């Protein structure tokens, strides 16, 4: 990878004099890498860890590197990956969304109910689930951007309220007796590829493109990097920040629908602790809890790293509780690395 260290700025400033002209016909990949250098470093590290792990598991277990097992990992990771994409956008704005598990459950349950009781098709139900997620996201966004609650608190409230709503709606009983077609998103296939993987790919590619190429994406990074600077630059911070939470909520709704579809039912207990997995995926992939940094590619790598650790543990017969410990260690390492990087950058400024 063409990843040179940037010139050190604690050298006397005159050292910059002889440096190449500000812009040449430098290849665009390099330019893009430069822009997100810090994220790229974490991404590279996480990707290396993932590759090493995949190679090691391929030798350790004959069942690992099979199409069935890989599709299995892909489908299992799909929900976490979709919701981790949502979480990444929020984290880049220096926010956090603790409500993803509750909102996913709410969306999945509502999606199941409209199919069972109102005869909606699975597609119509998906739209409803996305709308439910977006509505929860709108509430989060108004609380954060409008009422100026810290994101942690705003979404902690939604985590509790959302879960409560799920139990009220369902009477704490799962929503069953769904038609076979309900399984399409979670267990269906398209040209031999699990539908869930296709959805995840579409979500991830669109989100990555939006973040890196659109003005809205630029504002997402700008707000997370320096909210005051964004405001003074004339960016409509309140509107844009709310939009981030709405968009994230919509993706969480979609993820919740895929999750319900996988088990062909709406489960009121779904997604408890899910926020930890998706935050971990984002952070391992280079998203910074201090805002301003994070990329979808990294988040996907993070999500798959966690999934492969879990899958590998199962194949190798490692006690299930050790998986949690391993994931915990990875999170510590990732956040430590993030802070170390930040401190070094600040020491330069």
């Amino acid at each position, binding site marked *: 990878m063409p990843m040179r260290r940037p010139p050190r700025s604690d050298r006397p400033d005159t050292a*910059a004099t002889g440096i190449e002209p500000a812009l040449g016909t430098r290849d665009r990949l390099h330019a893009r890498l430069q822009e997100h250098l810090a994220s790229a470093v974490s991404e590279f590290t996480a990707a290396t860890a993932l590759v090493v792990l995949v190679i090691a598991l391929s030798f350790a277990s004959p069942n690992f590197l099979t199409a069935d097992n890989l599709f299995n990992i892909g489908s299992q990771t799909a929900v976490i990956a979709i919701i981790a994409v949502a979480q990444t956008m929020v984290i880049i704005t220096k926010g956090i969304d603790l409500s993803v598990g509750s909102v996913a459950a709410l969306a999945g349950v509502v999606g199941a109910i409209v199919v069972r009781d109102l005869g909606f098709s699975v597609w119509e139900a998906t739209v409803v689930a996305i709308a439910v997620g977006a509505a929860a996201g709108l509430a989060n966004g108004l609380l954060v951007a409008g009422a100026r609650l810290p994101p942690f608190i705003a979404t902690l409230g939604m985590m509790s309220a959302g879960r409560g709503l799920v139990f009220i709606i369902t009477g704490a009983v799962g929503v069953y007796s769904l038609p076979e077609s309900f399984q399409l998103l979670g267990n269906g296939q398209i040209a031999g590829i699990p539908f869930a993987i296709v959805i995840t790919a579409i979500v991830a590619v669109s989100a990555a493109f939006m973040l890196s190429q659109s003005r809205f994406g630029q504002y997402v990074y700008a707000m997370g990097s320096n909210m005051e600077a964004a405001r003074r630059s004339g960016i409509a911070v309140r509107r844009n920040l709310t939009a981030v939470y709405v968009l994230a909520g919509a993706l969480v709704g979609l993820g919740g629908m895929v999750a319900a579809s996988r088990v062909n039912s709406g489960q009121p207990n779904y997604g408890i602790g899910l926020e930890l997995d998706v935050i971990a995926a984002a952070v391992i992939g280079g998203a910074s809890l201090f805002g301003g940094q994070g990329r979808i590619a990294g988040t996907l790598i993070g999500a798959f790293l966690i999934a492969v650790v879990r899958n590998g543990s199962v194949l190798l017969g490692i006690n299930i509780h050790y998986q949690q410990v391993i994931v915990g260690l990875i999170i510590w390492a990732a956040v430590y690395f993030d802070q170390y990087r930040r401190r070094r950058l600040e020491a330069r400024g």
Partner: protein
Amino acid sequence: MSTVEGADPPVLEARGIVKRFGHVEALRGADFAVHRGEVVALIGDNGAGKSTLIKVLSGAQPHDEGEILIGGRPERFSSPVDARRAGVETVYQDLAVADDLSVAANLYLGREIMLGGLGGLLGLLDKRAMRRGAAEALEQLGVRIPRVTTPIAMLSGGQRQSVAVARAVIWATSVVILDEPTAALGVVQTQRVLEVVDRARDAGMSVVLVSHNMPQVLEIADRVEVMRLGRRTARFRAADATTDDLVAAMTGALVTEPEDADLR
């Protein structure tokens, strides 16, 4: 210069500005003026009202009485966005750059160049055009940075300050206000920033410079306006003034309000 008095109104003028915070009058009828292509230093002791005046001029705080004129036309700023629309750009002490964004992205923040056609309708950025524009603008202002794609966080303090100043100079159509632009910088870095100010003036831009550094003020400014107790109490041509004069004016030992014509 021997322009006829009145033929060329100041690009930015404040008349009798009053600003109260509760019972405290921070500005008590403050006047201020800067003409085209002129660097005016605004100095005064702590609490003299410099910062408040700057905030009023940059739209960050509304004033209670008095008027602001841009090119002779009265304007009312209710936000920094209004001031920017009127051509007044401000670099605050805390810089307000987005550290994680590239130099190019910061220069165009809030004023992005969009792709033409369908891409533009989809809200897509023309990053290439912005990189090119940023590189050209920085080149013209003599700001040296490794690459326009470098995140601001990776620059030195002087480079960051230069980029912030450049950003203001690029977008300002009439006046750039710099609040203590070199307070935190070393000698070499300070020179770099002052060079940018020089080039901006050469390009016909007007610059308002708030500073505590008297030798620097006399070196870079064309004129000096001194504030004391919420009012302008003295004006000098930098070429005629000494550090002692400035200090005397700041402490109230000297009061001088010469005619406009004598200053130009």
